[in-house]
């Protein structure tokens, strides 16, 4: 809103000081770090940023930031963020949450947010489990993962969020790893800067319910190929990779939704006139 030139901010300027509910060792601490470093690097004023979330461990992130935030309903971060950005295109709007929130209860909104291409960044901290409710399988959980709710495994193959995002028209698709703060910072900054809907899946281990994910740091590796501008090529790559390719996988050139609006085109219109017989 205020046309102020980018200022020098430290990452700590974006911290609210509220102590997170996250378990010690949770990957989300590092996502948080990557995010505040990214916005500091971009020099966006804290009050010009709004971070919008749903429900779940990772969805608690807005309260830990010294930005405007909305901790809304389970699964509804994207429509909340969409309404805000469409009404207030001057703000930097970031939606954030987990895999259950974004891919299960909010799955339909993901498809349509990609298609609509409002200039948002959507960060999903994917730990392949419902953590806040203490360990149930999510849409990205492997079919054989044993849990109380699905003894012996759910038997359902995992959902492929990046492919869905590509097929639905997302303008920027990336995968990051929370353990790599430097890489996460760069990818998130790139996502915020890129116009249109930017989707970043951040592999973020749940050390409590998925202790096996501590090993992710040994599995991740930089994507062996450069960012493509061809969504079909990007989709083929992510469908056939091992799930641990890190980097910006796709950058599109679609015009973002908000830019198609021309406000005040005919603001002098007399509303009453049309009703006279």
């Amino acid at each position, binding site marked *: *809103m*205020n046309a102020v030139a980018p200022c020098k901010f430290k990452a700590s300027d974006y911290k*609210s000081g*509220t102590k997170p509910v996250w378990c010690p060792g949770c990957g989300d601490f590092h996502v948080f770090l990557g995010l505040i470093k990214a916005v500091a690097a971009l020099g966006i*004023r*804290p*009050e*010009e940023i*709004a971070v*919008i979330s749903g429900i779940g461990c990772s969805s608690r992130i*807005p*309260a830990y*930031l*010294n*930005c*405007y*935030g*909305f*901790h*809304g*309903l389970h*699964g*509804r971060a*994207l*429509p*909340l*963020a*969409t*309404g*805000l*950005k*469409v*009404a*207030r295109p*001057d*703000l930097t709007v970031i939606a954030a949450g987990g895999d259950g929130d974004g891919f299960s209860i909010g799955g*339909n*909104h993901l*498809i*349509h947010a990609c298609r609509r291409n409002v200039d948002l960044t959507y960060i999903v901290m994917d730990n392949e489990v419902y953590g806040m409710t203490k360990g149930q399988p999510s849409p990205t959980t492997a079919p054989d993962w044993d849990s109380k709710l699905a003894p012996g495994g759910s038997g359902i193959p995992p959902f492929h969020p990046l492919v869905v995002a590509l097929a639905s028209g997302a303008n920027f698709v990336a995968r990051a790893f929370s353990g790599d703060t430097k890489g996460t910072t760069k990818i998130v900054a790139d996502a915020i800067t890129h116009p249109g809907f930017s989707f970043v899946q951040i592999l973020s281990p749940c050390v409590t319910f998925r202790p096996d994910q501590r090993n992710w740091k040994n599995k991740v590796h930089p994507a062996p190929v450069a960012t493509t501008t061809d969504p079909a090529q990007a989709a083929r790559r992510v469908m056939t990779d091992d799930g641990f390719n890190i980097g910006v996988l796709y950058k599109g050139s679609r015009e973002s939704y908000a830019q198609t*609006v*021309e*406000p*005040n*085109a*005919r*603001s002098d*219109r007399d*509303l*009453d006139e049309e*009703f*006279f*017989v």
Partner: protein
Amino acid sequence: MTAQAGSKDSFSVALFGKGGAGVVTAGEMLLAAAAQCGLYGLIIRAVGPQIRGGEAAALVRLGKVPVDCLDDRFDLLLGIGWKHAERLLPEISIDADSVVVTDPAQESVPESVLVSGAEIRELNMKELAETVSGGRANMVALGYVAALAGIPQDAIFQAIEKKLGHKGRDAVDISVEAAMLGFSKAEDLAPAEVADSGAKERWMISGNHATGLGALRGGIRFAAAYPITPATEVLEWLAPRLHDAGGTLSQAEDELASINMAIGASFGGVPSLTATSGPGLSLMIEGLGLAVCAEVPVVVVNVMRAGPSTGIPTKPEQSDFNAAIYGMHGDAPHIVVAPNSVSDCVYTTQWAVHLAEAMQVPVIVLSDQFLGQANVIADPIPAISFFTKRKLAEEVADDFERYAVTADGVSPMPIPGTPGGQYTADGLEHSRKATPSGTAADHTAQLDKRAGKIDSFDYGQHWAEIEGSGELAIVTWGSTTSMVREAMQRLPDKISENLKLIALRLLLPARPNEMAAALDGTKRVMVIEQNHTGQLYRFLRAWYDLPADVDTLHRPGPSVFRPGEIATKIEAWCSE
């Protein structure tokens, strides 16, 4: 105008035909022509469930005074054809005093029409139309009916010009010629009494468009839209006009998205609205609870249709009262208002925006299919202004508390972009500083604050329309108000002189003190509403002190109340 058993000052016409026959177009032109010569009127479109084709009826009522509901019966029923007429005839009551016009070249008049004893007249609509190249039977019908209603030729010309002018000179001329053929067939039959020829500045407006106008007048600049019958026209009307006003409308993927989009936009400081009907309201309820807890203003217009579930999408019912009042989980104080006529949709919606913004609370507007989709001729609806705007935190001190407990319960709200005002709006219970809190002290303080701001607000005289005085009172709401008003006018003086009308515009919060004052001296009350269980009646029983003698008239849709039905019930009640 003919004087009949229903209202003495109005003339009711039903035009029936198969889909594509143009009866709704003819009905709209009839209404527009009536408006040209100083009459008031109303049109209801009755259609079958099909998207295109099938049967349709235009139910038109013309009057010398404003008419806000259908009469008990029709003076005239005209069938361009009668195929599938039995599907809509139950809505069209005719009797021995009615006139039925039929085309001898088409299907024969249905048995249910013949048994009414109505006078049957033949008019070769199709044959006459075919004498004009490109002429259509519906225009012949228009001319004939307009002549019977005492509408002069000039007014018909103007109505045709207005409706078809954009199609070019030929289209207008062909229709005028066909209409005059019909007109000439009825001239001799026309009633002596001619319509008021004084041209007046009048509006033609539907309740759904009136709702959109009220929203824009109130300052709505963002709307989220998911199509649903019978609310879609609110959103379609708003789409280009919001854009012109510097706002935006966003089509959502579902109602879960539309309520959340509206809340997101309003969090950003932009007054926001969405419109829906019963099934959509059910989906939005969780979002409305979020708006209550996070204290974000938002307006949801619910154009009620018969429920439950998918129900009867094209027919009205006042049966979402309970859902609107009690739908949310937790203790979730909010506002519910209801317009009491088509024209009042403007005022009530504007007021809803004002209440939402002033109190940072969600407001549900309960319109219905009858109000929303009826088109009326009305006097121009003047703009009113409210001065209260959202209480913003524009200068933010270091110790700022977003949910500070204030005298009026409304806390200054910083909008994103305001330096130092950063906070996280939350559906989690929170402290005054907007940090999540599960303590009893914070929970109680915030519950008290959210309830208190609504209870202590000054609603002025707008909470109800109160008309008449006496020991008997009718309490009603929404579209039923129009039928009750007309019923009261028809009652014998000895009853109407002792009868008061209380039409609630504010359904929630309850206003027991104002009601007690309004009921001062009242010995008996009757509650009238269109639903199966008497939802308002039950609510009144819970929240208001009523006289011991309370009766109720409630029945479900899909057919709306007719004034005579209500008058009969009130008369019987008075003689008890």
